């Protein structure tokens, strides 16, 4: 396997800008999308190895629905095993209880979650762990 390709889906362009060098320092290819719709397109066209997904973009919880779509809908059939890490600045929606909440809503949650701002080492080690699976 060559360099892993990471897709960052976040409506905050500056955050994408700031997190890109961190990912590049670990020699990943980085692509990005600024909203859920663009994110869907990029997932289908670029087939990333892992997705960093912001929870709140156009609406309060659209990261939830996009994640659930990727994991369950036909559209993403071959890509449904792509690991997803949630990234959010809102702590209440993340942390150890987040997955539990996604399930409560009848949604399939992400593989991991991380708070914004991310610590570079923490982010890289979580990505590595999921890529090795």
């Amino acid at each position: 396997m060559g360099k892993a390709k990471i897709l960052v889906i976040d409506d905050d362009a500056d955050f994408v800008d700031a997190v890109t060098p961190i990912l590049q320092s670990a020699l990943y290819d980085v692509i990005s999308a600024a909203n859920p719709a663009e994110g869907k397109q990029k997932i289908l066209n670029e087939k990333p190895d892992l997705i960093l997904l912001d929870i709140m973009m156009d609406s309060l919880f659209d990261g939830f629905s996009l994640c659930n779509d990727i994991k369950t809908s036909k559209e993403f059939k071959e890509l449904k095993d792509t690991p997803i890490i949630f990234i959010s600045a809102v702590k209440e929606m993340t942390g150890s209880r987040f997955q539990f909440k996604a399930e409560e809503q009848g949604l399939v949650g992400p593989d991991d979650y991380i708070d914004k701002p991310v610590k570079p080492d923490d982010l890289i080690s979580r990505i590595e762990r999921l890529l090795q699976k």
Partner: protein
Amino acid sequence: MQHKKPIVLIIDDEEAMRDSCSQILLRDGLQAETAEDGTIGLEKVHDLMPDLVLIDLKMPGISGFEVLDKVKEYDPDIISIVITGYATVESAVEAMKKGAYDFLPKPFTPDQLRIIIRRGLERRRLIQERESLRREKKLMEENFITMVSHQLRSPLGTIVQYFEVILGGMAGKVEPKQEEMLTKARDRLENLMELINDWLDLTRMNGGQILDRFRSLSLQKVLKDIVEFILPSAQKENISLELLPYSGDDRIQGDDETLTQVFSNLITNAIKYNRPNGAIKVSIEEKEDSIAVHVEDTGRGIPEEHLPYIFDQFYRVKQNGEKKSKGTGLGLSIAKKIVEAHGGTIKVMSQPGKGSTFTVFFPRARQESETG
């Protein structure tokens, strides 16, 4: 709104009465249920959750008044209408005082029954609508808090992210003096983000929203998860952390998310203010009418003059010669609010130089859950 048939429960010892009322209500498209005495009636109230209950005041066994009381106690929003056989004004008045919505003197015509039931159900519908509006409003408020939190924290998060990149040397070499200043700037920003979080937590707590999330839970399980989660950071500081075994009753009514916050806060403090190679013991103790959780550390302790204030918002214990410590000064006041929302209390005992023990007392789970 759900469009299921309204349920009307008829509690009357006379079979003829039950049958004729059911017939009329069924013809009107309602779901009619019957019970021949108060005991069975109350069971059916729990099982069927009726919208309206017709109660005969004069029955063998438990009286209609008592049934009325119990129904009110179970769910004050259920509409109760009493049937007064002996048509005395006194009993009707007493029933109304006890919370009956209306009364129906025997004998009555089908139309009289229909009208009174229709009005009662209309009242019920209004109550339910009001309730669902209240819930919707609360959800909006909660989302509003989440939104504000997001709007405040997002930009800060991105700023810190830039600092992380620069400090990580990913944007070119950083001189030591620059690194020092950037680190300080980053830490201050992170502290500000914490503060926003804590403050929003307090706001949430004031709304009294956690009550809705109460369920029966095992304190031991909650504590075990927290201790496991925090253990690595205690080990990093060379501090031992253990949860002492406990075999008594440990069930309380509570919300595990906020309780996790309380005990994480107490244990994290116990790590932060401990001495090198110190110890932390977490234990559960059964008291006469409460269950206590102790978090005991071997730290420097809290000077007596500070003790009355440590649960106040933004209060910080400053020891001599110490620089401003990290944290927001809200942790313990949030903990106290959460504990109080659980009907409990939080106390501290401290011996300067030896350590502090924080104790949280919870009221025991009441044994009423057996009936539902």
